[in-house]
């Protein structure tokens, strides 16, 4: 059964699509959390329950948005591809591996697109969670979460660099620069 699923997904180039969604929406989740953390830091909010509530709410919204948007768009895309192939083949391909792939891939992509920002968001806010549970940390919770967010974004960039075959350090630094520019924009808006 797993061989059949792997074959179905293999012919659609699922690995590339899944990887793209993993990084794109993971980046989205990480930057959203970074923005929230910087915003909370600048506003002087110290109530951890409020910060956690807002961050978890945003993470859930990102997950649902990621799942539904990817499912709708990928289903439409794969059905269109299958119709075009059926026209070329002049036959119904619903029961072939192409038909199975057109049903499986949107689900897989939707899952990855939904879970990627959710898991990354939870990872970034883990220091806030730890502080809420009174676990001792070397840094204050918001600062620690900020550092984790930068580290996650650096690693996402590094992963992309490894995939595309460019220098992983430069790719990671590029993602880090984007994170720092985002923070700078939020900080400068605070002075308006």
């Amino acid at each position, binding site marked *: 059964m797993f061989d059949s699923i792997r*074959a179905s997904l*293999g*012919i*659609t180039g699922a690995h590339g699509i899944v990887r793209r969604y993993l990084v794109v929406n993971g980046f989205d989740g990480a930057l959203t959390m970074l923005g929230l953390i910087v915003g909370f830091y600048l506003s002087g909010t110290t109530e951890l329950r409020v910060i956690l509530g807002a961050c978890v709410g945003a993470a859930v919204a990102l997950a649902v948005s990621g799942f539904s948007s990817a499912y709708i768009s990928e289903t439409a895309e794969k059905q269109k591809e299958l119709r*075009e*192939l059926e026209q*070329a*083949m*002049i*036959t119904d*391909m619903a*029961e*072939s*591996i*192409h038909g199975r792939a057109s049903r499986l891939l949107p689900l897989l992509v939707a899952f990855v697109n939904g879970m990627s920002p959710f898991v990354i968001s939870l990872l970034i806010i883990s220091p806030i969670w730890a502080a809420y549970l009174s676990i001792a940390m070397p840094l204050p919770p918001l600062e620690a979460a900020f550092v984790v967010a930068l580290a996650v974004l650096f690693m996402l960039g590094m992963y992309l660099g490894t995939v595309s075959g460019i220098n992983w350090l430069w790719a990671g630094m590029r993602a880090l620069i984007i994170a720092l520019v985002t923070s700078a924009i939020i900080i400068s808006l605070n002075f308006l």
Partner: protein
Amino acid sequence: MGSNYIIADKKTDDTNMIRIKKIVFDVLKPHRPTGLEFASAVAEKCPGSVVNLNVEAVDQNTESVLLRVEGESLDFDNISNTILEMGGSIHSVDEVEVIHLPDAGAEE
């Protein structure tokens, strides 16, 4: 299928057995799975067989291939189902080689 059709390892009447030794399909298939993946999938379903795939023509989304399967006892249904499952469409059966084996019990 009725009794007039040849099916591997099936008795056509009480005393005779027909086995398919070679069969050549004219198949229209999408570019993916590749010829190697396509032929491997067929070979996987027919242990001990030799599968040969020749690309005859290439179109924008499809390609016409000649799929030659040789073995001691081929299962037509199994092969054709695999071809359909891999997204292929059988246009014709261009060549077959069958062997008539007298039933062992009848010989005695």
